[in-house]
């Protein structure tokens, strides 16, 4: 069951938390293409948030191509397609890598251990995707 949880008072603004969780769920296939998400109003009520916060998160996800809004019928998971230019893609990847690496490096793993962990995780995620595509 797809569920979003937000924590106020954390490092990440709440709308970012929503974006991260939706993106993560799409990546790990907890959410499949075509699945509908709760409406802005429903999610805002459920999470006890200002609906502008939820709207902002959804708008960003639509802009990134993760979600698509079907007029009058709500918000759905979009088919994966490239919305960014190659320059923008590179920039986003570099940014995500910086955040990820700076967090990981403080834990004291060696570069080899990190690469191994990344490869393992990546393999698992792609395996899930392939499995879903077969189904």
């Amino acid at each position, binding site marked *: 069951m797809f569920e979003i949880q937000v924590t*106020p*008072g954390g490092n990440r603004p709440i709308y970012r938390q929503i974006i991260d969780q939706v993106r993560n769920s799409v990546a790990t296939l907890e959410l499949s293409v075509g699945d509908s998400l709760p409406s802005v109003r429903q999610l805002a009520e459920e999470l006890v948030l200002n609906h502008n916060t939820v709207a902002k998160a959804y708008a960003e996800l639509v802009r990134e191509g993760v979600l698509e809004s079907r007029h009058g019928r709500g918000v759905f998971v979009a088919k994966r397609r490239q919305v960014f230019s190659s320059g923008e893609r590179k920039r986003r990847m570099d940014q995500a890598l910086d955040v990820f690496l700076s967090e990981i490096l403080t834990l004291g793993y060696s570069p080899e251990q990190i690469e191994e962990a990344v490869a393992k995780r990546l393999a698992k995620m792609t395996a899930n995707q392939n499995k879903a595509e077969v189904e």
Partner: protein
Amino acid sequence: MMRADNIAIRTSGLTRYFGHKAALRGLTLDIPRGQVTALVGHNGAGKTTLIRMLLGLLPPTRGRSELLGHDSQSLTPEVRTRVGYLAEGHFLWGWMRVRDTARLQRETFPRWDQPLFDAMLKFFGVTPDARVRQISRGQRAGVSLAMTLATDPELLILDDPSMGLDPVARRALVEGLLAFARRDDRTILICTHLLDDVERLADRIAIISNGQLLVDAGLAEFRERVGGWTIDADFGAQQAAQIPGLVDSRQLRERTHLVVADPDQETVAAIQRISGTARREELTLKDAVLAYLRPSAMVGSISAALENVR
């Protein structure tokens, strides 16, 4: 002069002295319609004084303010019926029965919504026949909120509505406010120091410290434009002067934590010069706000930061 219709509250140079002490100094702030604005500051920072002046319950020493386009010091009864006010402490006369509080409102608020009042009482678990002195603090807050929201105001002003409430009552209050804010063209101004609630409720944030307005920005914008760094080098007034937009610095064990407004490449470079191992860190809302509220020796730098985060 054309007045923009999308500003619910306007203040201009609002100043108030009590004896020789200034509770508010030259406050100029616009609160836009249709949004939730949180006013944050220490107790005694001037928030309650500001609210009282906005509602015409206290005259300013200097300056003026407007509610819904009408001068605060000469509000007509008609304008007052469009503004809901929840004063701090949730005051109600103890001898009254809860259902009698509706009687107090019904006579003079033309859009009184009795079903909403009853529904809210139920939501907060208050029996209408109980006397105000018999119910708990949280329930009294619920009654106050019900009394105010059921008058169907366009503009809702709340002064520390969650003070003295347990977490359950607090959550109920936030839910009630969000339900109100969802409706068309409702404006909320809420004074609070509960930053978790601010994160849930607010579109905008204004920070007042020592009677002065330090920040007036959208909440997301505020968080994006305020950055935090941790450095391991010595940090004193000399180093502080080199960083434009520095809001606050705090020593914790051997490290110094910096909060900077609108950090640009120059700022980053300046920080790197002071300490090569400086690390950028994501700030919680609390950290960002506290940086503005902490009395800091670097007054000069704060003024520079003020200009950036308006």
